């Protein structure tokens, strides 16, 4: 008989168990998180949640539809902060239903600080403080060392060989706008190339894809020619607007390269898929090509197709070496310090982690400390 009884209870629907309720953390209130478990959820049609303001009072359903999950976020507009609520979960099978024990009381609250984002706050404050410190130091005129980027020697070398052959020089910002950092960084490099082309009395051609960048280029080259003592050689017709369309610009510049057959070409700015078309045509006329962009997807083409390529931030450093403009200088120095800080932190933690795993058998606590640190940086999703 006992046997049968156990059998029966086996068939009667087991109610949901371990129902947990708590205020939804780090939110603006009026939200309660409910979680529960059930030994065989797939054998059920679903669950329904009931809420009431008293443990024995009348429970009203929170949502008409049946739920097939074992967790729920109650954000009903009726919820009030500071009021105690009680919940129970009822499981439904085809012909039967079973309710869980009542869980509660639970009070919804709005938090003033999102604790799960402490790591973001800490890192943002440290990084912002360091950048502001270095930019202020640079603006007070403090001398700060930036190493010479080998790209600058490559520029002089390319200019030398082009001027020996008496061939013109071509410079392009690509599709960059005046608000792009890489275009602003390329202007001092254009000035250096302009000065050299004035000294050797060799034509400097600058086709542009943006009218505003074109005017900035004309001013820079004019200043460079006057600085080199040859203002008479400056000719604005060499610095023109081609078109703002990506492939139209590539076709236009290719035409200029094939007609003028420049000795040296400088691709310094913002380039997209057309970088390939430009670099290949430059190669067909045998020009020495030097490139630099922060657009990482195009760097492989420039690295393989050009004689020298400045990768990403190297352009900012090269530009700063020539003309140490305070804000850019401060940013580079700030970035350098943070990079070294990150290398230090990563190295210390990696070696600590290695030690923790190796010594895990005798000092298990090390491993938990290491995992806590790793999770502090980025909690497992």
């Amino acid at each position, binding site marked *: 008989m006992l046997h049968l009884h156990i059998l029966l209870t086996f068939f009667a629907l087991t109610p949901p168990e371990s129902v947990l309720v708590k205020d939804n953390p780090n939110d603006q209130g009026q939200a309660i998180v409910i979680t529960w478990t059930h030994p065989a959820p797939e054998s059920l049609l679903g669950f329904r949640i009931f809420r009431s303001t008293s443990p024995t009072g009348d429970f009203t359903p929170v949502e008409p*539809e049946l739920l097939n999950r074992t967790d729920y976020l109650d954000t009903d507009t009726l919820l009030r902060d500071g009021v105690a609520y009680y919940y129970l979960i009822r499981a439904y099978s085809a012909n039967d239903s079973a309710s869980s024990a009542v869980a509660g009381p639970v009070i919804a609250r709005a938090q003033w600080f999102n604790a799960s984002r402490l790591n973001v706050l800490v890192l943002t404050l440290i990084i912002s403080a360091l950048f502001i410190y270095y930019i202020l130091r640079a603006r007070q005129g403090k001398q700060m060392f930036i190493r010479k980027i080998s790209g600058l020697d490559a520029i002089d070398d390319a200019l030398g060989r082009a001027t020996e052959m008496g061939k013109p020089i071509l410079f392009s910002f690509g599709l960059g706008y005046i608000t792009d950092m890489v275009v602003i960084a390329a202007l001092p490099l254009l000035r250096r190339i302009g000065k050299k082309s004035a000294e050797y009395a060799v034509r400097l051609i600058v086709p542009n894809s943006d009218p505003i960048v074109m005017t900035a280029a004309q001013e820079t080259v004019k200043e460079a020619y006057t600085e080199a003592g040859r203002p008479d050689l400056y000719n604005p017709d060499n610095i023109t607007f081609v078109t703002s369309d990506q492939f139209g610009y590539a076709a236009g510049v290719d035409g200029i390269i094939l007609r003028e057959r420049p000795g040296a070409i400088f691709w310094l700015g913002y380039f997209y898929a057309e970088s390939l078309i430009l670099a290949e045509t430059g190669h067909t006329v045998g020009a020495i090509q030097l490139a630099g962009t922060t657009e990482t*997807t195009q760097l492989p083409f420039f690295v393989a197709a050009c004689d020298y390529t400045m990768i990403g931030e190297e352009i900012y450093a090269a530009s700063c070496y020539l003309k140490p403009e305070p804000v850019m200088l401060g940013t580079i120095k700030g970035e350098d310090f943070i990079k070294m800080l990150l290398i230090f932190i990563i190295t210390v933690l990696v070696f600590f982690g290695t030690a923790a795993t190796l010594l895990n058998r005798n000092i298990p606590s090390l491993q938990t400390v290491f995992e806590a640190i790793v999770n502090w940086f980025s909690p497992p999703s």
Partner: protein
Amino acid sequence: MKLWERLATIDRRIIYSILALVVILPLILKPKIGVRVSEPVRDAYSAIEQLPTNSVVMISIDFDPSSAPEVQPMLIALLRHCFKKNLKVILTGQLALGLPMGEIALNQVAPEYQKVYGKDYVNIGYRPGYAAMMVGIGREIRDFFKTDYRGVPIDSFEFMRGVHNYHDIALLVSLAHGAVADAWIQYAGARFKQKIIVGCTGVNAPGMYQYYSAHQIEGIIGGLQGASEYETLVQKPGSATLGMPAQSAAHGLLILLLIIGNIGFLLSRKKSRGK
């Protein structure tokens, strides 16, 4: 002009015509080839495979016609997988030029599984705002998407009533050709702990590996190769698998050209140094 000099300077129009030939012939002859499934694609497949029925999957069309030949087969294979598993699909997108591609795919795949608009899948269209929209959905999807792409209120669709924010979306699939996938990972993934898989063009696949190894995304379907792997997993070979032989031939041609070009270059450099 010596042989190796001619080797190093084949006219580009000859190269173009060989390439055209090497791509068209396999399309016409259609040779059969086996496809090896890589781990990132298998993880993407299992991310959907283990979802309980009726879970909600949001597919974001973040590519446009220029990368459709690579990403569209992924979309079709993913839709077939979701419909076969009776999952609810919400289609949205970040690119103005991209969303109609989603519409075309839905109208092709839905009838295959007798899926009905509104009951099994919904197309809520495109809203600009980019990161603003991604963060906005974290709070309440209706802040940005009150209606579907035809202006019908989303609350009139039965399964949409239970969907408020990322909490109710079991998986987000970003089919991207640019940095849009990074934005979904940084805003939806990092901020709201949303589970994400990414389908992207070959150009962007390398950039996704760092997120994959950091477990910020569950899986990657990279380029046409990834698409043909997913088609094999779903046992429905489509245009990606059809394209693989042509890919194989074209890659072979390129490696050959690189070798010839460099042999010509090295010989000519040795000769000029000898002179």
